[in-house]
């Protein structure tokens, strides 16, 4: 089952002719994912070639969807144009738009979020995120669906769901699981920006309803209150064991720690408050980031 994406999900890449988008389109093809289209305005009719693959490029997302049946997109478009690209994906009625782009102005994302309010068709993941992976059954999880920039080979097909605001910390958790022989259902990076499309809680609800997912790792960081909201829901409704880690206990207040959303302001968004919310909800708290997998496995 997995959530959001399956090994046969048809993917289009917005910004496939850029170096970043092209590189990761190639890596997704190598992983065995179905990259069926690229979109770069003005380059419609050309092809993205990678090894034996030949992916058609379209001028618009609507055209790409019509011709190829793509249902999910990865946005690698530069920050000034990314909001427009996200909304183009929603306008084309994609199921999923995954915005990888880092550095989109907050005001643009406020407008995107407003425009998507009430849209039950398209889910936005990100921006400023590593994307999603549903591992496949082949060697090093080959044959899965990889949308974004995560390393595919560290995954293993299995039953743990991972959701995180941070890319490399997600890989760390996934690697800890895989190294112990424990696989993942789907791994979702929701991104480090203050305004994002999908929250921890949205993903937790999907994992809770997914029969294949048996346990969940939730990785958060300082800033905002999304982790607290997820914890509150978990306390009341979640049927599955959840372990978590919060990064940023040592971060100085008022400073943005790399991610635009990772900031303690006005005494709110502290690691301390989030960890307390986790504990109150019965979430297993990994004392160090080295123990994320271990903490969950002890609960199962």
């Amino acid at each position, binding site marked *: 089952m997995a959530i959001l994406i399956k090994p046969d999900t048809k993917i289009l890449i917005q910004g496939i002719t850029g170096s970043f988008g092209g590189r990761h389109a190639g890596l997704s093809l190598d992983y065995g994912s179905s990259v069926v289209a690229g979109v770069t305005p003005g380059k419609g009719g050309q092809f993205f070639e990678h090894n034996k693959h030949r992916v058609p490029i379209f001028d618009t997302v609507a055209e790409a969807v019509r011709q190829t049946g793509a249902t999910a997109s990865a946005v690698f478009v530069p920050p000034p144009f990314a909001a427009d690209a996200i909304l183009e994906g929603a306008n084309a009625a994609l199921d999923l738009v995954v915005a990888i782009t880092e550095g989109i102005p*907050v005001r643009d994302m*406020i407008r995107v979020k407003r425009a998507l309010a009430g849209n039950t068709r398209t889910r936005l993941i990100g921006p400023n995120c590593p994307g999603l992976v549903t591992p496949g059954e082949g060697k090093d999880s080959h044959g899965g669906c990889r949308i974004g920039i995560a390393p595919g080979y560290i995954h293993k097909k299995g039953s743990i769901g991972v959701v995180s605001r941070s890319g490399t910390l997600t890989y760390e958790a996934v*690697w800890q699981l895989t190294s112990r022989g424990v696989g993942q259902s789907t791994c979702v990076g929701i991104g480090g920006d203050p305004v994002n499309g999908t929250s921890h809680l949205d993903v937790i609800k999907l994992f809770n309803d997914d029969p294949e997912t048996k346990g969940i790792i939730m990785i958060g960081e300082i800033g905002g209150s999304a982790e607290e909201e997820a914890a509150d829901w978990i306390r009341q409704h979640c049927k599955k064991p959840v372990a978590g880690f919060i990064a940023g206990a040592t971060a100085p207040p008022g400073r943005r720690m790399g991610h635009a959303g990772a900031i303690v302001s006005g005494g709110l968004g502290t*690691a301390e408050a989030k960890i307390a919310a986790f504990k109150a909800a019965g979430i297993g708290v990994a004392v160090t980031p080295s*123990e994320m997998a271990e903490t969950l496995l002890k609960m199962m």
Partner: protein
Amino acid sequence: MNIHEYQAKQLLARHGVAVPLEIPARSIPEARSAADQIMGSGASRVVVKSQIHAGGRGKGSFKNGFQGGVKVASSAAEATDLAQAMLGNVLVTKQTGPEGRTVQTLLIAEGAKIKREFYLAVLLDRASSRPVIMASTEGGMDIEEVAATHPHLIFREQVDPALGIMPYQARKIASALQLKGELFNAAVKLICGVYQTWWESDASMVELNPLAVVGRPDGSEALLALDAKISLDDNALFRHKDILEMRDLNEEAPLEIEASKYSLNYIKLDGSIACLVNGAGLAMATMDIIQHFGGSPANFLDVGGGASQEQVSAAFKIILSDPNVKGILVNIFGGIMDCNVIASGIVAAVLETGLKLPLVVRLEGNNVTQGRNTLAQSGVSIITAGSMADAAQKVVQAVKR
């Protein structure tokens, strides 16, 4: 990016927000002439305000012993004396840290007779992903304290970004501030202008504290933004060339400026263990685990996803220019990157900088075996580690020795 009070008020004034008569001054003669001009306009007093990117200026003290970064003078001559005491001197406030900030600009303003003080701010409400206006009758105070002790005295109004602020919303806020008559109408205009400033400038926060009702010499009253603070969304500066020109590099840590030239995200802290990590979340987690095992992190440093040899080398130089650093922890999860390339970069950087401090390296990911071999065969003294916990314990031990 943060800007100075006088720059914030320039942006606000562009959007119709009423500010006092005030003139920035960068030298004693400029301060003198500004004070003359303001006194000449009929003001009975002038205020001399130090311009630094930190709060608590009024209660701050200068390293030369002079008390107070914001002072009132009753003559231009007195204002000039105050300017003399402040300009070029280091002001320490509760927000600057003990090192303080050098005052390079003063704002010379008309001394208003304050009758009532309010708080007004626009910021992002993260929970709803919409702008929110916060207002309070308890102006001139620490708003976080008001929020903690008297939350009912803070009025909030959310703005629909598709509509922008509607006048009725400004009227609700003016009413909550208990303003009447002419002042009520002035408040509606001002509140709309403050929101416009936030939206049009791509600000992350606009804060007036205080916004005040002041008495004019002719007996009339006016609503003015007496103090203002604006911080801006760095990601949007590309479309605000005029605001980008307001950047004051004197207010930024030199090492952080240097780091930004190499697209490194560096924040200096007070500890002794430097860290070099790829990815913001992993970098924060690395700081946390150092502290967990009894050490203290000297910095946050995210080299990003790429971590080229130039970046790694620049990162080492920046880390090593902090004299408090006694040991270094490199923590790289090379998902896509080739760990061997990173290992070569680390070895090159160590040789180039002639590193003498203990260096612990934890490498994981793509082509890691080859990377570890490169480290082992380099002849450079490197302590290698398996997990993050192992790495943190080893560097804490090494620094203790």
